[in-house]
């Protein structure tokens, strides 16, 4: 069935046909026809953010917590340029979002018209794909195609730039099924390579599963299969920052997070293993540390949907191109058909070694004295919220790493952090996106005071839509992670890493109409957190913590996994040399 309608109506119709329920956006001249259509319908809810960056991060939060694509709608020029950080964030973390931008009318493109920007040019390197639609007849198909591209293969952000005359003009609406794309990434893994891996699993003496965001992106079935595989083999498992929740933190095989601020036992297991099974992770530099000392004695398998991730930084012996869920299903079958064997004796020895590493208790700390230690704050937050239907977003910095270390995630899509780009200002709008998707859940943004200020205007959005997001701010009055690096790498010269002239966060909460809670006493902490949870509305929680705490363990840039710092005492002098040029 084909229908004639305006481009603006097509946009709304296509979104409805794609099953979209929420759009995060901000109007302007170049998208007014679309806003007019949004006004005249009741299928899609529009959430008015306070800044376009917020719209994109909110769409990301929505997508990361549901597995469904998130949608943002912004105007041309500044609206589009404000979306760039969110697009890049989504690209780095492989998050499926669709961003619709308005554009000056086609006949004005190239004339430096008011609020004209070369949006497809600017966003080409920060989207998986983008389109400028110059013909209303092609608009609906392009939108359907955009959803397909965003969701298939390695997911990612896409953008559609729609000139205003295309929104006004009439054209034929084509339905979802009429897609004509050739884009269809391979999902099934090579069975020979899978068989080789199954054989390696049967004889491995010191195996480890190294999992990442790809497991979560592959969908809940992938996490389920991973759990079966871990249980059946008894192999230890670690995960990157992006993969937390794909295997339950309470599971017996869990080592904790790997990487620069990963747990001692996880990094040591990665270093000492003889078989590394990478499932949906990408050997990021935060994980590998020094490349030429990375897991020197292991055979490596790598399951990834993106061919360009395989052999990019670390050479692997068993590359398996395919979707995680697909490959894991085959792997389980093949390994079971081979008799489901493992080297039990060697595994028992391996686990003994791992237990010895665990005994280091690398996250151990004591809360003494009158000042709240940030690790304590996160531990109490974890203890008091873990039994809730809980979703956690974060900002970027020390607080983010402490949250990853001290909180436990039992299921995928419950931990939504900016990993690849490390975007301060991501957490607040992301928490709004999450709460829109899970209205009755407890959604907490674990924040640092500096990051939080970057998109705090979105508290207005939370108020308007009655989204009871909890902003749990570890306030060290420092750009803590920067301060830590300056202490370790720059001779304790603390250049510009103070949060000066901070607003009174409780008064700020009240100014927004939210609830403000301040806590600076360890004895009051539990009660204050309970008060935050119980409050039926947005809360800004100002948790005043120790100002000079460092985040450990830490593998300083340029060190190997077995060269971890576990405490301040180990840092003698500064870190200099080539390591110092690294980020």
């Amino acid at each position, binding site marked *: 069935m084909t229908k004639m309608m305006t481009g603006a109506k097509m946009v709304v119709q296509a979104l409805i046909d794609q099953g979209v329920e929420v759009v995060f956006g901000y109007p302007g001249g170049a998208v007014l026809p679309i806003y007019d259509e949004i006004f005249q319908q009741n299928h899609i809810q529009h959430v008015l953010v306070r800044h376009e960056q917020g719209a994109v991060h909110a769409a990301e939060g929505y997508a990361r917590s549901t597995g469904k694509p998130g949608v943002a709608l912004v105007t041309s020029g500044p609206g589009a340029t404000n979306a760039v950080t969110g697009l890049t964030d989504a690209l780095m973390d492989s998050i499926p979002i669709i961003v619709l931008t308005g554009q000056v009318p086609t006949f004005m493109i190239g004339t430096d018209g008011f609020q004209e920007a070369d949006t*497809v*040019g600017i966003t*080409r*390197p920060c989207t*998986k*794909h*983008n389109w*400028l639609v110059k013909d209303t007849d092609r608009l609906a198909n392009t939108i359907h195609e955009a959803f397909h*591209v965003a969701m298939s*293969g*390695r997911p990612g952000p896409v953008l559609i730039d729609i000139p205003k005359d295309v929104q006004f003009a009439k054209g034929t609406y084509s339905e979802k099924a009429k897609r004509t794309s*050739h*884009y269809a*990434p391979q999902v099934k893994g090579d069975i020979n390579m899978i068989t080789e891996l199954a054989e390696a699993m049967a004889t491995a003496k010191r195996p480890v599963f190294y999992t990442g965001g790809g497991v979560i992106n592959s969908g809940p079935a992938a996490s389920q299969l991973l759990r079966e595989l871990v249980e059946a083999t008894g192999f230890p498992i670690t995960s990157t920052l992006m993969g937390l929740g794909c295997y339950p933190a309470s599971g017996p095989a869990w080592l904790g997070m790997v990487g620069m601020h990963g747990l*001692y036992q996880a990094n*040591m297991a990665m270093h000492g293993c003889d078989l590394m099974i990478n499932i949906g992770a990408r050997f990021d*530099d935060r994980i*590998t*540390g*020094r*490349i*030429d*000392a990375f897991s020197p004695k292991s055979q490596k398998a790598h399951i990834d949907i*993106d*061919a*360009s991730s*395989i*052999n*990019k*930084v670390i*050479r692997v012996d068993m590359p398996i191109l395919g979707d995680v869920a697909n490959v894991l299903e085959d792997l389980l079958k093949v390994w079971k058909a081979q008799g489901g064997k493992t080297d039990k004796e060697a595994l028992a020895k391996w686990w003994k070694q791992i237990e010895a590493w665990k005994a*280091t208790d690398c996250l151990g700390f004591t809360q003494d004295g009158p000042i709240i230690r940030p690790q304590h704050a996160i531990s109490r937050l974890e203890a008091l919220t873990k039994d809730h239907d809980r979703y956690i977003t974060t900002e970027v910095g020390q607080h983010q790493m402490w949250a990853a270390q001290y909180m436990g995630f039992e299921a995928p899509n419950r931990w939504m952090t900016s990993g690849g780009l490390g975007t301060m200002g991501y957490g607040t709008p992301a928490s709004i996106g999450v709460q829109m998707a899970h209205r009755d859940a407890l959604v907490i943004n674990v924040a640092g005071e500096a990051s939080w200020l970057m998109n705090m205007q979105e508290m207005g959005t939370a108020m308007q839509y009655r989204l009871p997001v909890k902003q749990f701010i570890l306030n060290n009055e420092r750009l803590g992670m920067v301060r830590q690096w300056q202490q370790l790498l720059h001779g304790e010269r603390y250049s510009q890493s103070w949060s000066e002239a901070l607003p009174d966060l409780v008064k700020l909460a009240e100014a927004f109409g939210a609830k403000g809670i301040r806590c600076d006493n360890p004895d009051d902490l539990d009660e204050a957190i309970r008060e935050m949870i119980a409050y039926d509305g947005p809360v800004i929680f100002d948790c005043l913590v120790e100002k000079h705490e460092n985040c450990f363990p830490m593998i*300083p*840039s*340029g*060190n190997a996994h*077995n*060269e*971890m*710092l*576990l405490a301040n005492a*180990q*840092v*003698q*002098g*500064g*870190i*200099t*040399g*080539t*390591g*110092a*040029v*690294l980020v």
Partner: protein
Amino acid sequence: MSALNIKKGASSHSAYDLRSTFGDTIEKHTLAVIVENEPGVLARVIGLFAGRGYNIESLTVAEIDHTGHRSRITIVTTGTPQVIVQIKAQLGRIVPVHEVHDLTVEGPSVERELALFKVGGQGDARVEALRLADIFRANVVDSTLESFVFEITGTPEKIDAFAELMRPLGLQEVARTGVAALARGGDSHV
């Protein structure tokens, strides 16, 4: 655990130390990339090379199938074996890219480039230029009393050689198309 002594002034290695375990020899490869001929597709390919620091030695592009809207981009690039593999994988994930072929490894192939040379001069030099052009099977496509424009096709090496010979004979201007290449034999890529 060995306690790490990070002493002042000590050097440490780079986390981005990509001195690869893959071999360091620089290789030259000719890639044929079949793309949807849609706006911006060339910018995507070039942007990929610029953004990730890959080399482009030569690049040619034209639509080869007007009804199917397919273009063929021929890229000559250099890099270590690992970089070449990365380039192909990165090209392959651009959405409007249909196929990526490495003609250098997929079997024998032919490569041709077309060039126009403007050579000015009189007397013996002029005669010599004409004689050499004949040997190189270059055609004269324009001539005045003081100049010739030669058209020559061949491998880039042949064209380089011709340029070297023309230089002392009054070479004034050169235009080269870049390499077009096809696999030999009956198999077709498009």
